[in-house]
């Protein structure tokens, strides 16, 4: 999964920060018990919604007004991959499993459509869920296990259902080789997904201990068996009319303009333990001008920005004004920014470590937005994911994190290039930060004689065929690739499966930019049947750091602003980098 994809960053006026993709990390992988349970009522204060609930209320009614600089990549639950869209999916789709606690860094999984979390075989190869009975779609039809099976079968139709994190499922579920999905291949055979009464069983190709987390992704939300959204809304066009299983109905949609969510009269609070909707309506409006959004937030005419952090100007104003600041949150959104150093280009590990030591992490952090946008990272695993250890910093860059020139020079000696070397730095354009990251790294490495030249590609091809193609990386000698990542689900597997596993290296569209193919790392990641513990996570963290192919510099933080009239506000770090959990929010006045 790509973590940051720049929203069309070409407008002269401030384009707000990253458009955040997909889920997030946290939870310690060890399905940690909800620690800060309840987290009582909080008065508005800076960062109050990061861990707690601001303005708790049970008052119902009103309309929640959300603004976004862009529409979702898709409203089809199987095809969306933006974190903010996963947060929006919580309004109108339900899955077998969901998150009952989404704030802070320790999240709680809870059964949603199912009566309990998955029951698994001893080898973690079959997972069974029992569907609650009597749950209905917004059209009054009952949701059956066949609908979920159908939703899973849809995922295999990769020529139509694409864009979402479908590869987790297609790689794991025991479908026959060459199965083309429900449209051309018919129903999935029972050897893959079987149904009996209200229960549904998934048969996996290999043991997978994190399966509940997969079921908590929006990807397998029920889709009405065969009829989907009705005539004209099947397959590629389901995004225009997704059927609602959650408390809100996707009632009117104008692409790239607006969505209106109204209440679903068939949804019953008694069947739902993770949502407590308060408002009657949620309006999602696309406003392409980020400065306009900021103005409206400040004026109180909109409640929150739905897709990403607030703009540069509002950020500066919020941080310097106590009255604004108490309505803002800047939580650690457990993602990281790093420099990928492919071993196909910088072949000697000591040369890679020289880069690691010479890097000016404080400067790079400054470029990504300063202390409001992150903290300096010592190692790869971000806070929340099992294996995070703030004291672990194998290649320290000095007290102020501006680089350790002496250590870098001694690594260069060991590498046999005492006078340094030349390589290229890749970043995507247009981007507000890419060029500045390059300049910062160039200046930092110049201190030890390593010279950098820029190599760029435009945003879309950057990830697919430029940095995303190992052959291209090698031929263009992309020695350092600017990258960032956030987890699809909060376990080391959900974080690293695509970016660190040797088996995940693809000829194009590769996300393992570092070309990391280390036996220890592979073995840890391939052992999907074993649960993650802090120890195992740390082992993975250390193994990745030792390769010197992934040089982290920042764990991300995200600054949002909430309208003071919003009640019951909390941040959704489980799915959406701390964007507010709109399904549970209310409005006063």
């Amino acid at each position, binding site marked *: 999964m790509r973590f940051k994809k720049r929203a069309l*960053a*070409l*407008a*002269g*006026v*401030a*384009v707000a920060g990253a458009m955040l993709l997909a889920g997030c990390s946290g939870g310690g992988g060890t399905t940690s018990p909800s620690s800060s349970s309840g987290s009582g009522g909080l008065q508005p204060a800076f960062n109050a919604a990061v861990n707690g609930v601001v303005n708790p209320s049970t008052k119902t009614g009103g309309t929640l007004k959300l603004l976004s600089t862009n529409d979702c990549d898709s409203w089809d639950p199987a095809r969306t991959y933006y974190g903010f869209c996963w947060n929006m999916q919580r309004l109108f789709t339900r899955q077998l499993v969901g998150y009952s606690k989404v704030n802070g860094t320790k999240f709680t999984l809870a059964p949603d459509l199912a009566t309990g979390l998955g029951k698994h075989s001893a080898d973690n190869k079959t997972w069974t869920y029992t569907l609650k009975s009597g749950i209905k779609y917004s059209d009054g039809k009952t949701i059956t296990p066949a609908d979920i099976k159908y939703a899973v079968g849809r995922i295999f139709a990769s020529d139509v259902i694409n864009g979402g994190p479908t590869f987790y499922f297609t790689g794991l579920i025991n479908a026959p080789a060459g199965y083309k999905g429900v449209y051309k291949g018919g129903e999935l055979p029972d050897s893959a997904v079987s149904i009996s009464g209200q229960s549904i069983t998934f048969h996996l190709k290999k043991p997978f201990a994190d399966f509940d987390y997969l079921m908590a992704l929006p990807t397998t939300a029920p889709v009405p068996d065969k009829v989907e959204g009705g005539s004209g809304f099947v397959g590629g066009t389901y995004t225009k009319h997704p059927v609602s299983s959650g408390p809100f109905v996707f009632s009117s949609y104008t692409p790239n303009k607006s969505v209106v969510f109204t209440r679903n009269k068939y949804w019953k609070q008694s069947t739902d333990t993770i949502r407590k909707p308060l408002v009657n309506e949620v309006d999602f409006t696309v406003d392409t001008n980020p400065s306009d959004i900021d103005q409206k937030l400040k004026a109180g005419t909109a409640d929150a920005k739905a897709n990403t952090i607030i703009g*540069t*100007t509002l*950020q*500066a104003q919020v*941080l310097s004004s106590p009255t604004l600041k108490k309505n803002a949150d800047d939580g650690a959104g457990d993602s990281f920014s790093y420099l990928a150093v492919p071993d196909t280009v910088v072949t000697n590990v000591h040369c890679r470590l020289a880069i690691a030591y010479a890097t*000016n992490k*404080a*400067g790079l952090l*400054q*470029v990504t*937005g*300063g*202390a*409001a946008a992150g903290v300096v990272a010592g190692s790869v695993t971000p806070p929340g994911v099992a294996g995070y250890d703030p004291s672990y910093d194998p290649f320290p860059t000095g007290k*102020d994190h*501006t680089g350790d020139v002496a250590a870098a020079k001694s690594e260069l000696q060991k590498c046999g290039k005492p006078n340094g070397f030349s390589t290229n730095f*890749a970043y995507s*354009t*247009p*981007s*507000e*930060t890419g*060029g*500045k990251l*390059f*300049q*910062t790294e*160039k*200046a930092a490495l110049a201190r030890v004689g390593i010279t950098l*030249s*820029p*190599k*760029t*590609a*435009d945003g879309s*091809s950057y990830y697919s065929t*430029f940095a995303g193609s190992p052959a291209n990386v090698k031929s*263009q000698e992309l020695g350092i690739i600017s990258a960032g990542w956030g987890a699809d689900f909060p376990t080391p597997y959900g974080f690293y499966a695509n970016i660190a596993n040797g088996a995940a290296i693809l000829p194009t569209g590769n996300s393992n930019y570092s070309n990391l193919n280390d036996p220890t790392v592979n073995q840890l990641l391939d052992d999907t049947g074993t649960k993650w513990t802090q120890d195992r996570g740390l082992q993975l963290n250390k193994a990745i750091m030792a390769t010197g192919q992934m040089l982290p510099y920042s764990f991300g933080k995200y600054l949002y602003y909430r309208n003071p009239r919003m009640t019951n506000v909390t941040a959704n770090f489980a799915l959406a980098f701390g964007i507010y959990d709109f399904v549970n929010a209310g409005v006063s006045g």
Partner: protein
Amino acid sequence: MTLSGPTELEAVAAEDGLTGAGLDPEGDQAPQAIQGRSLWSIAWRRLRRDKVAMAGGIVIVLLVLIAVFAPLLQALYGQDYQTLHQTDGLLDPLDSMPKGALGGVSGAHWLGVTPVTGQDILTLLMYGARTSLIIAGLATALSLILGVTLGLTAGYFRGWVDLLISRTMDVLLSFPTLLLSIALITVVGYISGAEIVRFEIIIFVLGFFGWPYIGRIVRGQVLSLREKEFVEAARSLGASNLRIMFREIIPNLIGPILVYTTLTIPNNMLGEAGLSFLGIGVIPPTPSWGQMLSDAGQYFQIDPLYLFLPGLAIFISVLAFNLFGDGLRDALDPKSGR
């Protein structure tokens, strides 16, 4: 190429009905050496009297000097644009904005530093002038070479050669060139990804789509010049086509070409700045005024000076060229009463 706007060049071309800027071919200035020299000296005298044009000329000279001696000036001033003052106290660590009034204006950094990277703005502007002039100059040279050669060929040989070249110019002039240029730059940039190629492709695109303008002017002039007595005379003396073209006709085209050049350079400067503003021009670390403006767009509410500095740099430079070019045109125009 125009970036969503007309240009002074178009204004001139339109005013002169695209038949020829400057020297009037229908006039009686047969290019005997003596008369030619006196024509130029008349023009020079006229130009010198035009204070506005001369002011423009002085600014151009200053600009070129700054661009040429940027490294020296940078050394004298004691700052350079390559140094990033990110972690040495000039930027606010919380939000990366310059500390202090007016974007960090100080004794050391006369025009302040940039947000986020903390680069010295004065030196960035000096090197931005370099980028601007190099790209605009080379692109103009490319248009000139193509336009003069093809316009001369078309006008001199007429017939099917003329038909081919004229139709090509017609098609190019009615192309949505801006869209194609942007597309071309993106595509080539994608395939190679290297900085030097970006420079070349920008020059190529600006220069290539500009040649039909000068091509038309030259063709029109040549069509009438080739019928003049002195050309006939040269031909009857057995001069080759090449000799006639370069020795007899080209010298008569210098006036319009000169005017065209001074008015195309600012046009191309705006083109480069526009492309860089859109994020498809030159990329960091190469400084560019357009790139600075695009960057400043994110911060202009907090740090307005950063917006005004590169904006004024573009404005002043382009205006200087336009004023000088305008004055030059008037000075070379025998009809002009000024």
